[in-house]
């Protein structure tokens, strides 16, 4: 009798844990790591050694932890770039391209303006980056509005165009004449560089995602506009009947999204690279998109999913450096984590 009662207790407990979204997500992440561990074992490596190295290189040391923070800056901004448009029902898969254009625009300000002080230069670069990303995203919305072209494919393809667009400049007019023929722009002057903090590579660009998360959270949950956005995303026709200017919300959400991705680009060139070169991003924008979906577009949850992805990416770099695994393998792990988190989500009633 007693054993069946305790069994009931265990069952209740598991059920309760399983009913909580956060618990389910954590379970899903462990599941993905387990599957990846099996994969590591199959290719003849030691999963315990790999995971230990990943842990030591990320959460286990000050340098590792700060590197995770460094990666989180662009991830969070790129995730918000997907999540804010998602609120009004738009799919922005163009974060990568918007990031490149933002980096390009802020580099233009850094190199070709004569702004003397850091207090004016950095805001000017940030504004340029934001506007650059916003315009790039706005093109997709213009095509959607005027020509009925769905934004998924236009934003996807515009990533490739943006990367080539940056190449036009770094291989051409903006190439550093003293750069031994490498496709880099000249290095930024000191007033165009985001200062580092805590004696690490962590830089003041950290302000951007922190403010971004707080502002997005407050805006979405505490203001009428946030509620209206949800209404637009849920059912645009109903929202229109309630007198909400649907088109305006759609345009603004997409522009803010593109602008935030542009800020990610600004913080990368100003905080990390200190010049513009091809391939500055290496999938940052795409990872942000996945982080946003994993978090169900919730700004607070985005912190968690970006933290996780940053750990995987930084851990992957450590493994690549020590020759354990090529960093491409980390894309496999990130894919597994996303499939698992989405797949473990509670099934909603099918709307058929």
């Amino acid at each position, binding site marked *: 009798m007693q054993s069946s009662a305790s069994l009931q207790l265990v069952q209740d407990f598991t059920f309760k844990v399983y009913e909580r979204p956060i618990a389910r997500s954590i379970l899903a992440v462990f599941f993905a790591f387990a599957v990846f561990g099996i994969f590591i074992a199959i290719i003849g490596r030691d999963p315990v050694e790999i995971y230990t190295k990943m842990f030591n290189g990320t959460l286990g040391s000050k340098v590792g932890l700060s590197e995770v923070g460094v990666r989180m800056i662009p991830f969070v901004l790129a995730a918000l770039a997907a999540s804010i448009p998602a609120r009004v029902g738009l799919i922005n898969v163009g974060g990568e391209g918007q990031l490149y254009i933002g980096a390009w625009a802020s580099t233009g300000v850094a190199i070709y303006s004569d702004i003397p002080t850091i207090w004016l230069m950095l805001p000017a670069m940030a504004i340029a980056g934001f506007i650059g990303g916003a315009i790039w995203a706005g093109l997709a919305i213009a095509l959607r509005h005027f020509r009925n072209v769905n934004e998924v494919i236009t934003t996807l*393809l515009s990533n490739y165009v943006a990367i080539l667009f940056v190449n036009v400049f770094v291989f051409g007019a903006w190439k550093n004449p003293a750069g031994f023929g490498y496709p880099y722009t000249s290095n930024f002057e000191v007033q165009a560089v985001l200062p580092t903090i805590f004696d690490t590579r962590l830089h003041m660009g950290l302000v951007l995602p922190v403010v971004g998360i707080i502002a997005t959270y407050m805006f979405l949950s505490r203001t009428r506009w946030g509620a209206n956005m949800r209404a637009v995303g849920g059912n645009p026709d109903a929202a229109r009947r309630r007198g909400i200017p649907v088109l305006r919300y*759609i345009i603004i959400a997409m522009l803010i999204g593109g602008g935030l991705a542009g800020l990610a680009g600004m913080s990368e060139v100003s905080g990390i690279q200190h010049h513009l070169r091809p391939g500055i991003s290496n999938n940052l924008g795409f990872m942000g998109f996945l982080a946003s979906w994993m978090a169900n577009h919730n700004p607070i949850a985005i912190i968690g999913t970006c933290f996780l992805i940053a750990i995987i990416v930084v851990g992957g770099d450590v493994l690549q450096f020590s020759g354990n695994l090529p960093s491409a393998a980390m894309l496999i792990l990130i894919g597994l984590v996303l499939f698992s988190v989405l797949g473990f989500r509670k099934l909603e009633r099918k709307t058929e």
Partner: protein
Amino acid sequence: MNDIWLVLGGTLTGAVGPGISVLYATYGELITERAGRINLGIEGSMLMGACFGFIATVETGSVTLGVLSGMVGGSLLSLVLAYLVIYRNTNQLATGFALTLFGAGITAYAGRTYVDSTINGLNPITVPILSEIPKLGIALFEQDVLAYIAYILGPVLFLGLHYTRTGLSLKAVGESISVAYAAGRNPYMIQIVAIAMGGALAGLGGAQLSLGFTHTWSEGMTVGRGFVAVGLVIFAMWSPLRAMVGAFLFGGAIGLQLQLQTIGAPVSPFILDMLPYLIIIFVMSLWSRAAARAMPEGLKGVLRATT
């Protein structure tokens, strides 16, 4: 003036080769979308096809086995999407996009030791008589065997889609799952088969790219061809015959870009590289309203483009 004709002639002859891989991916996506599902993982499936097709050809020396491995690779990847979107009800776009990154990771890992490998691969077969048609002959009938299969596959898919029981079931599922169910079909099984076939065709396209077009493997070598295919399906308004037009448009854009580079046009090569993507975005916007009306009902929730 001579230059212009040279460029146009070269574009025409160069349009078919680069278009074939995209054409297969477009067929694949078209079948998937006709069944009411959208697969953004088609880019990943192409990479799987290109990578595993190449590896199998290097290891076995048989191109046939290479092509088959590519198809199996592309198909397996798309089955992950089928399971997640149908049985776990995940978002199709996010799942498909993650699948592309997943495929990019797998192929970058698996193919990293094959980057410098060389293969004989698929070589052009000249069709007698037909290749002597002025202008078009060389462009169309001096291609590898997969190109000829692709020419035939378009009309076959068209007939299959509109005049066979299987094709009609597929379309019915794409229009309404519940109606198809009520008519005694198994809609989810049909969708799974369509997604798997779509992945296999994308894998075949990828295999054609690495085995027939470039004869090499490099990481991320499809550079968006799978996403181009998703755009072309809309351009083609879900018709396999129009898909052929679209794929050769993409091929023509690549041909034009190569021709302009050859004659040394005074433009940055990167601007020329943008051409294929810009042209696809442009043609998608040409009759996008008609396309929105022609869209299978099952896709309308996902590919909404009105506000």
